[in-house]
Every structure is written in structure tokens, then in C-alpha cells.
């Protein structure tokens, strides 16, 4: 394949267009007559000028330099890179769903509201909660929404609690969301089994504790067996329990955060419920709550009044709005389509498959890597590259070596409490053969580390580009294209040649 490294601005040629608008059927106004001169643009924005085929070739070439889930196995821990069903894409693009305006009269969007209402109801069942809001755009926004509700709940009781407890294995967004919601974070260390240290927890829980945020199974893929006791400790002190649903793929139809004692839950629909990740988004992060928190839920709420679906914003104790309109509707439609495709039995089988796959792969790899928590895991597991590190090869190097074999590497260096961590989540949608092939490559890399470490240290060898200098990028940030910079770049190319 011919290498293609141009930016869209570099293939731009003055006069080319990639659009067509109808001839104007009304008189054109002269802005000079209307708009004060200083508010009229004096220099056109330098957007590229390309014909449609140039455009198509450009973005096709870019896509060829991108690894998606459809290209190959993507065992990125905590991200639940499961198959993104094509049918969901078809449904979300139906014009009755994609070409409707959020402020249309309520009687013209009954189908859309019915989807939202049904999704709320089904997610409430799946999480064991009493009500669900679909507004938050992503997991982190869901966390913040949940914490704002917790804050409002305590304040309504006349209490100003400032502390949110977070285990050391938590996702980075947990403490960040707590901070943005105005709480102080206290980190709770894990015990030697990788679980919440109940004794440590008890030391920190007091009348100032607003909530404990927990992922269960946690980021090590381990189920917090003492969750009932943990919940009791927090509840007794008047605090609430927040469930980070990033790992919900492990528990569908097996247990619910509600039965574990959680009061608030967010789900990442782009993880567990197949909304595609889109290269970083859009996602959707619905939040479920127990009855005590219903008054504080964001507005508007989708409700059913007789056989009509309505929007209710008349909720005096609500924390208010958290997101524009009705949440990321397109992603919600995809998730609903997925849930309807799997049904009650199917969702249970999803989690069974996810857990079976994670344990199978763990067992296959354990002889070759340190396994700090060698026990039954849920949907994901962690390995440590500490054995390889002693031989001079780091986890990062092994991750880069995986690229040569067409795999997206696992999540690395997270959670923070595992040295040289590799966090692997195969998901239920991958076949046994795919996992076997991946395991073979991992084992081969482990052998290479012992016999021929250079090949791992210098990896990747087959990608379109080698390891990039991240220090250069951060020290001398070039964050946009400029002609001047492009000329400099060309100069470098010529010197090299």
C-alpha cells in the first residue's frame, strides 16, 4: 500500500468543493448593510478545499491507519470492547429517530419518549434501582450527577458532609468527579486480596462521610464479597453507596447493585450495552437511584401519564439540569436495541460468557506472567509484568509488541496498585479461537522477553509509525496545523532524504 501521510489541509486546492447547495431562491442580503462592520469576518477561516473523492480517499486512508474492534481483538480492561451490533447503527439512523428536534411538540415525539421510558424501566430492573435518569452523556458525568444527588440529599437533611471515600483501585474519574462535585476524596487502601480493607474503611467512615464510591467487581476483576458489610458500615454512619457501573458486564442477571446495598448507580452504555466507543465518544451514562434519591434526580424526567409519554420538569428538589435536551439519545437508542436483542436470558448469558472468557484466558496466561490475585475473577483480570521487568522489558514494551500481531493491547499500568499491570477484558463476544490465538501470542512474547528481548524492546515493527515522542509533544505543543509548521516539516523530510 502506498503510504499516505498528508493532512487534509495539505491536499487542499483552491476552488475545489465537496458539497452542493440548491440555487438560492430568495434575495441575498449584503451583510455590510446589516451587521456592524467590526462584527463581519475580515479573514475567511482556512478550511480545506477538496473534491468529494479527495475527501473520501483522505478519510479512508486515515481509517486504514486506525484499529477498531472490527479489525481485531481489543482486550482493553475496564473498557468492555464488545462487538458493536450493526443493527443498532441502522436503527439509530432511522429518520424518525435521527431527524427529530428535541423541542418538537410532545405529541410528535411519542415514539422517542417511549423508547426512553422503556429504557429507563429496563435499566432500573437490570441495576435493581427504583428510577433511572438517562441524561448524563458519559460515565464521568453520571458519577458527578450521582454525587450531586447525594450532596443534595444530605443538604436536605441539614447535613453538610464533605468526604467521599474511594478505594485505591478506583477509576481516575471517581476522585475527579468527587472533586468537581465539591467533595474531598479519601483513598481507602486495598487488602492483600485486592479487596476493600474493611478495617481501614471503618477507620475512615464517620459523620462527615457523604458516600463511598465502589466498582464491583473492582478494577482487578474481583468481586467485593464483603459488600453487604461494607454497605452496612457506610449506611450506619449515614453515608450512601455509589456504584461505578463501568464493570457491570460481569453481573447482568446474576446480581444487582441494588441488592448489594448501593443507593446510586451509573452505567456506561457505550461499554456494557454496546453503544460504540467512536474513538473516544459519544457515550451515555444513565444513573439509577433508590427511592430516597428520586426527589433529587435531574430534570426533565420522562414519565408516563395514562398512555401518553410526557416530560416533567416540575421537581422542586431536583439538582437541576446536567445535560442538554434528553441525553445522548442516539446512544440510548442503540442500547435499547441491544437490550431488546438480548432479552432477559440473553443478558444473563452475556455476563456468564464474559466471566467464563476472562477466567479461561487468565488460566491460560497465568503460567507465563505474575498473577497477583490468582483466584476466580469476573469479567476481567490483572497480570503483572514484574517477572519480565526483572529481565529489562517493561509492560509498555510488551504492549507495543502486541501491535505487531494485530492486537490492541490490554489496559496497562492500571489499576495503580499493581506493579507493571496488564488488565485484560476479553468480553463475551470473542470466540474461543480468538482468545486461544491471543494467548499464543502473549506466550510467545513472554518467551521473546527471555530469549530475544530486543525484538520486544524495539516494538512495534509493523505499524505505520513507530513509538512517538510524547515528551516532545508535551514540551513543544503543536496542537493545530499551520502553513509555517508544515514548511518546517517538509524541510525535515528533505534533510532526511
Amino acid at each position: 500500500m502506498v503510504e499516505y501521510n498528508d493532512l487534509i489541509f495539505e491536499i487542499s486546492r483552491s476552488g475545489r468543493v465537496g458539497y452542493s447547495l440548491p440555487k438560492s431562491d430568495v434575495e441575498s442580503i449584503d451583510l455590510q448593510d446589516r451587521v456592524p462592520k467590526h462584527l463581519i469576518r475580515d479573514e475567511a477561516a482556512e478550511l480545506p478545499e477538496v473534491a468529494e473523492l479527495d475527501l473520501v480517499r483522505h478519510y479512508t486512508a486515515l481509517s486504514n491507519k486506525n484499529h477498531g474492534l472490527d479489525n481485531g481483538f481489543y482486550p482493553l480492561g475496564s473498557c468492555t470492547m464488545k462487538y458493536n451490533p450493526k443493527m443498532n447503527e441502522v436503527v439509530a439512523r432511522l429518520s424518525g429517530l435521527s431527524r427529530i428536534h428535541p423541542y418538537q411538540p410532545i405529541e410528535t415525539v411519542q415514539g422517542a419518549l417511549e423508547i426512553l421510558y422503556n429504557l429507563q424501566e429496563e435499566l432500573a430492573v437490570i441495576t435493581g434501582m427504583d428510577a433511572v435518569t438517562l441524561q448524563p452523556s458519559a460515565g464521568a458525568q453520571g458519577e458527578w450527577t450521582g454525587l450531586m444527588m447525594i450532596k443534595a440529599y444530605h443538604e436536605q437533611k441539614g447535613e453538610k458532609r464533605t468526604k467521599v471515600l474511594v478505594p485505591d483501585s478506583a477509576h481516575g474519574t471517581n476522585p475527579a468527579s468527587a472533586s468537581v462535585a465539591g467533595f474531598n476524596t479519601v483513598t481507602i487502601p486495598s487488602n492483600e486480596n485486592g479487596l476493600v480493607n474493611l478495617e481501614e474503611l471503618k477507620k475512615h467512615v464517620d459523620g462527615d462521610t457523604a458516600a463511598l464510591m465502589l466498582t464491583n467487581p473492582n478494577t482487578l476483576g474481583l468481586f467485593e464479597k464483603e459488600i453487604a458489610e461494607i454497605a452496612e458500615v457506610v449506611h450506619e454512619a449515614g453515608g450512601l453507596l455509589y456504584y461505578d457501573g463501568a464493570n457491570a458486564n460481569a453481573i447482568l442477571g446474576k446480581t444487582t447493585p441494588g441488592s448489594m446495598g448501593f443507593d446510586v448507580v451509573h452505567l456506561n452504555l457505550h461499554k456494557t450495552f454496546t453503544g460504540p466507543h467512536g474513538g473516544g465518544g459519544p457515550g451515555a451514562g444513565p444513573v439509577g437511584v433508590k427511592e430516597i434519591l428520586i426527589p433529587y434526580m435531574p430534570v426533565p424526567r420522562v414519565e408516563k401519564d395514562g398512555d401518553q409519554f410526557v416530560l416533567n420538569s416540575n421537581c422542586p428538589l431536583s439538582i437541576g439540569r446536567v445535560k442538554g435536551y434528553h441525553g445522548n439519545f442516539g446512544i440510548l437508542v442503540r442500547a435499547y436495541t441491544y437490550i431488546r436483542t438480548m432479552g432477559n436470558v440473553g443478558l444473563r448469558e452475556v455476563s456468564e460468557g464474559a466471566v467464563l472468557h476472562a477466567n479461561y484466558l487468565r488460566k491460560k496466561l497465568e503460567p507465563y506472567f505474575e498473577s497477583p490475585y490468582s483466584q476466580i475473577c469476573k469479567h476481567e483480570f490483572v497480570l503483572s509484568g514484574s517477572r519480565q521487568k526483572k529481565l529489562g522489558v517493561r509492560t509498555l514494551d510488551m504492549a507495543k509488541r502486541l501491535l505487531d500481531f494485530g492486537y490492541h493491547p490490554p489496559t496497562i499500568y492500571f489499576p495503580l496498585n499493581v506493579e507493571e499491570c496488564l488488565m485484560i477484558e476479553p468480553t463475551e463476544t470473542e470466540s474461543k479461537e480468538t482468545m486461544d490465538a491471543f494467548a499464543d501470542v502473549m506466550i510467545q512474547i513472554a518467551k521473546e522477553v527471555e530469549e530475544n528481548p530486543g525484538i520486544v524492546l524495539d516494538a512495534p515493527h509493523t505499524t505505520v509509525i513507530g513509538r512517538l515522542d510524547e515528551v516532545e509533544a508535551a514540551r513543544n505543543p503543536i496542537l493545530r496545523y499551520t502553513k509555517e509548521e508544515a514548511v518546517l516539516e517538509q524541510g525535515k523530510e528533505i534533510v532526511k532524504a
Partner: protein
Amino acid sequence: MSNTYRYLPDTEQDKKEMLELLNMSSIEELFADIPSELRLKGELNIPEADSEPTLIKKMKKLAARNISADQYPTFLGAGTYDHYIPSVVDHMISRSEFYTAYTPYQPEISQGELQAIFEFQTMVSELTGMDVANSSMYDGFTSLAEAASLAVATTRRSKVLVSKAVHPESRAILSTVSKGQGYTVEEVSLAIDVTDLEELKQQIEKDTAAVIVQYPNFFGSIEDLAEIKKIAEEKGALFVVSSNPLALALLQSPGKLGADIVIGDMQPLGIPMSFGGPHCGYFAVKQKYMRKIPGRIVGQSHDDKGKRGFVLTLQAREQHIRRDKATSNICSNQALNALASSICMSALGKHGIRQMAQRNFDKADYMAKSLGKKGFNILNKSAFFNEFVVELPCSVKEVSSKLLEAGFIGGYDLSLDYGFDNQMLIAVTEQRSKEEIDQFVEVLEAVVNG
């Protein structure tokens, strides 16, 4: 026996072999660590699975219960617009190398996405006249709240002034966010259709972190950013402008008019209305705030052989590094929609975007004039882009339902958020033909006279 679910590949034989390696006889053993009292008894109380053909039918039926812009010409705007989206946009974002990828944490196999974001950042910088743009935000509304938080954190001041001519949902979200972060928000009242600058001068003080306005504002009117900048600057407050990127094709860039932060939503450029989401917020700043910008940013770098490439950069700002010290918790963004917008902007190009923006000016002007000729009062005193406010002799709700009967989606009811009875905010994009506009005006005339 064959499998039931098309997304689950395990056959009975597969399961058996995997369990054998685990030395187990059933999958149940893998769930033994969940205490039995927490276990669900029976199946989830939701309906059974639907087959693909059945579900497609059901979803089409639900979709058919909505009235789409394909069926009824729409004159609704108020932050979300029915614009032309070149076919090429959806085709290119449907390449699954893009839409099934995660955040580009492994740059060697993510150059496509990273370069696309770098190009997006460039286009946003160009339109806004700012130095740096990030890779996208949830939407324009949440972007505005993040801008306010940035201003508060940077200036260490505790008050934010926001014009009432800023979208009501932006203000509502700002209000929610401010409660978490502990700053106060004051609204600046209107001088008819624009921000009241005299009021602003009265309200601004040395504890004001930011002055936030919208351009064009919620009523479609074009605020005088130069004047507002002077007022903000005098008190050392950051100047935050929420802007419609399509309008920026013809309006002076907020950057040139002194904005410190420019935010907004890319929806008008390549993103379907989709009942309000997902859209795509953008966030652009002056150079000096580069290291404070929330969300992900892509930068240019080189590999070990000196070849140009792109990486996520300045990550020290981000939630996963800063954890409890973070001032923003944004993680996922709207990358795929940013890509859609980039493709749309590339298709339109330097001239097309101006032509499209001009067409919006023209169509709205034509409609306002037509209504004026019929005796309707247009309330905008300033120049407007593709939206304006018309006064009706009766409630908007009443008129809207009559319009609906006639096959039109009417404008936005300003009695809702502003208490302005009998005032309709009408949007006219390049999508509306002269014929549709004429018919709408006729119906409106008949309705109010009828």
C-alpha cells in the same frame, strides 16, 4: 444444538472445553464468590429477546410515531438546527475503524483518529480565531459550564456573569455545575434582544471571574462582542463566548474580538438533530490557557525515525492523572461527532461554509420580511443570523398546534423559559425553500386571523 444469540459465539462444546481448563463443571462455579443472598433469583424481569426482523419492525414502528424533519418542514432552532449534511459525512464515519475504536491511547494503531482530531482542532481554531481547541466536549451547554469553571479556577474569583440571552439550558446546567464547585452565577438582563450592557457594567466587579455571552445569542441577534470585551477586560474578568460555528463563517471571530474562551456546539456542521444528542461541544482558548483546557488534546510529534505523527498530549491536566486534584472530570468525549463535523467542514470547505452561512442569513431575512409585510412584529432590534422572534396575537402553543395540523413544525415558545407570552423564536436554515417559507407565512397569517 445451535446457539440462540448472534452476538454470543460460545457453543456448548466451547463452554465445555473452557470449563475443563478451569477444572470446573459449570459456569455457576465462576459466580460462587457472589454471596447467595445477593444473587438474583430467576431471570431479570424484562421482556425476552426479539429476533432481528421483529425488532427492526418494532423500532421502525416507534420511529414512525415521531414526526421527522423529512415529513414536516421545521422552523424550530433554539440551539439545534436542521441543516444540510453531505452524504459523504455519514458514509465516512460509518467506517468501523473509526466508530468501533476506543480512545486513541495506542498512537501507533490510532493515527487515523489522532490525525482526524488534530484536523478538527485546527478547523475549530480557524473558525473561532483561537489558538488552541480540544478534541470535543459532551455538548455546547456543558462546554459552557466547563468554561465558567476554568475561569473561576484561573482567576481565583468566585462569581460568573452570564447573559440572559445565553441559551436557557446552558444557564440551567451552569447553575447545577456551580453548586458543585461553589461559585455563584448571576444573570445579566436583556435590552430587548441583546445583553443589557449598562446592567453588565453595574453587575461586574473585581470578584467576577467571567462574562459569558452567546454569539449569535438565543434570539438570533448578534451581540457586540467588542463592547462586551471592553467591559470584561476593565475588571480583569475572562471573556467567554458561546458561538454557533456556522455563523462564524461570516461573523468576525470571537478570538479577534478578544474572547479568552470560545465554546459551543458543532451540531450545525454535520451532526443530525437526533432528538438533541449526541451532538458535539467544542472548547477553544487563548494560548495562555492551553494547559488549563479540559478534556483530551492531540499534538504533533515524531517517531524514533523522525516521521510525523500524532499523540494525545498535555495529559497531566486530565482526570486519570490528577484524580482528586482535577478541575474537570471529563473522560469520554464526542470524538465520532467531531469527526463528522470535520468531514462536513472539509466537504463545505472555505467557500461552502460561507455560502451556507449566507444562505441562512438570507432565508431568515426573507421570512422576517414576509412576516413583516403581513403585519407581524419582529422583535429583534439588532441584526440576526438564522433566527428571530416574532410576536403573535395569541399563545405560541395554540399557533403551534395549528401549524402542526397544516404540516409544519413551528418555532420555539418563549413563554417557556422567559415568560415572554405570544413570542415565537423562528429558525430558518438553508434547508427551507422559499415555497415552504411562503406557505408557513400563509398558514401563520390564516391561523392568527382565523
